[in-house]
């Protein structure tokens, strides 16, 4: 299974139509057409692929790709913990 890092980069790259290499070298989301349509598309794809629900407030606070990876990783971990209970 792909890592969270890879899943986030692939998803953002696909939605923004940007090669993943570019995203790695320029990780600030505002450098791309990161508008509400693109960000919601990425949200939907990530929630579907990783079976998590993200908090919109935290999500919209993400400035870089690493911020996105971190918040998604936190959601995945929280879900895993909840599933174990």
């Amino acid at each position, binding site marked *: 299974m792909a890592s969270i890092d890879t899943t986030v980069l692939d998803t953002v790259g*696909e939605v923004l139509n940007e090669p993943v290499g570019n995203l790695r070298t320029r990780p600030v989301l505002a450098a791309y057409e990161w508008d509400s349509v693109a960000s*919601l598309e990425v949200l*939907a794809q990530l929630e*579907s*692929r990783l079976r998590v629900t993200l908090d919109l407030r935290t999500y919209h606070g993400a400035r870089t790709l690493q911020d996105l990876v971190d918040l998604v990783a936190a959601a995945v971990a929280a879900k895993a913990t909840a599933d174990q209970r």
Partner: protein
Amino acid sequence: MSEFDELLAALRSAVDGRRAPAPAVRHALRHAEDPAVLRRAGRILAALGPADHELRPVRVAVLATCTIGPFEHLLRASLVAAGALPTLALGDYGGFELALAGGAFAGDGDGDGQPDLVACLLDERYFLPRDWDAVDVVALAAHLDARLADLRELVVANLRRSSATIVLHTVPVPAELRETVISWRARAEVGRAWHRLNAGLLGLADEGSRVAVVDLAGELADAPFRARDERLHRFADLPYTDGALLLLARQVARVAQARLGLSRKVLALDLDNTLWGGVVGEVGVPGVQLGGLYPGNCYLDLQRTALRLRQQGVVLVLASKNDAALVDDALTSHPEVLLRPDTFSVRAVNWSAKADNLRHAADRLNLGSQAFVFVDDSPFERGHVASELPDVAVVAADGDPAYLVRSLLEGGWFDVPELTDTDLSRPQLYRSRALRTDFSADFASSDAYLHALRTRVLARPVTPFEVARVAQLAARTNQFNLTGIRFEDGATAAMSTDPNHLVASFAVADRFGDEGIVGAAWIECRGRVWWVLNLVLSCRAFGRGVEFAMAEWIVRRAREAGASAVAGRYLPTARNAVAATFWQRAGFTPSGEDGVFTVVPGDAPTCLPAWITYGDEVMAGHD
């Protein structure tokens, strides 16, 4: 690579190659359930060009009382899956009423900007007042009525100014609205007002044949997902979840399909384990499951549904590998059968490949294969038809029969804008054109398909664990049963350990899966001549050459044992006509004794079909 990744890769390849996605790809797109995949598919398909397309062009204006969002991608994917090449023009946010009333929409420079279809995405905010009094439900209901009247005016105005078909939908009652009212009586009033609104929306179809109304609220009641995502509703004015939007997109695509003449006219049905449970050739006419309790009621419901489709103009074709006389008897004499012989415009009951039978049926009916929907429980038959006739819509009838009716109907294959007199008379018209048709008996399936199946046969002397299964096969197999002799458990077990006998089991696996033991042979190998006392093969494995692999294995084994001849017998029974020429087709020659055929092992050319290999021992039937 997952099946979804494969699907998306196939779509990218089609778009890059400037060609329409192949029918099999469109079929997969049609059956994909994950909206996230469909969103991605829709984005890829946005670049699908107009050149060299077998898809039917359609211009669709999408107008919404909320954010259109992913509906665009889901609609595009659904339209392509239905066989259309869509050009979408999206209405401006907040511009719903103006655009609908004006009848002119943003074009893409293609044509006059007039769409063929106007897909409207409605939400509750369009109908509700900005604020409302929770103790005055009457005023709320009056407001809903007034907004419905406003919408009717807009629709009528559009119909005057445009030639497009308008697609509207009902709106699910918002839980927030219902739950805000705390008295049960008032809550019932609210529900009634909302249902009246939806009834009024459905009533807009009366404004003319160019208005279609999808019952989204009804569809959602049957769906396993939420209709709303509150986060996206509050944040982005996206009132519906992707699942709900996909449901709507597929309904809009069905309207487009019907408008574009892409709907199907013919329903070709298998018999055994589709129109009734069991194999009539094995269990006899009284033994099939039909009517009564589960699972017989499932098959009866499928027959009833097929009959209702026929009442509405769908032409029925029977496509069954069976003995025609036996099927005639079943269709005529079984008290529960609803689809009597004369309900079928063409009956193709024989042992030919079903793809050939459907081709002949299409010729007889003077229709193309793209008019056909084919329903069968066998993955082999469905795969063969899909391979030979990719335009045929193939519906799976295997698995739990409880889903038979839903599987048939959920594609909306036969939708028409409105029934005409021609529709209503079509089945009889085609029946008199084709009447009863018996196609030439021929066991062939196409070589290419059979090679692609990668069929593996595992043949070996029966083990103690297989004796019961082999004896059961002997007991149940009536059609490909060469002598009709049924060796029971005891006799089979005794022969399996006797040095003068050989009992062999034959298991089959192919790319559709492992079928386990499907054939068996009982052989007396005393002396120089090996006698095949009986050979049986389940009807599931007919038409793939498995029987010849069985013969080849027996002859090879006899040669290795030093036998000078192998002899087999065919004794006709009431049901084994299908096997009458088997020995000769396997390279044996008549011995002079009635029904006995022989071959000299060293002289016999191999009759092993080129597409079959002998498999290893991992198949389930031989574990």
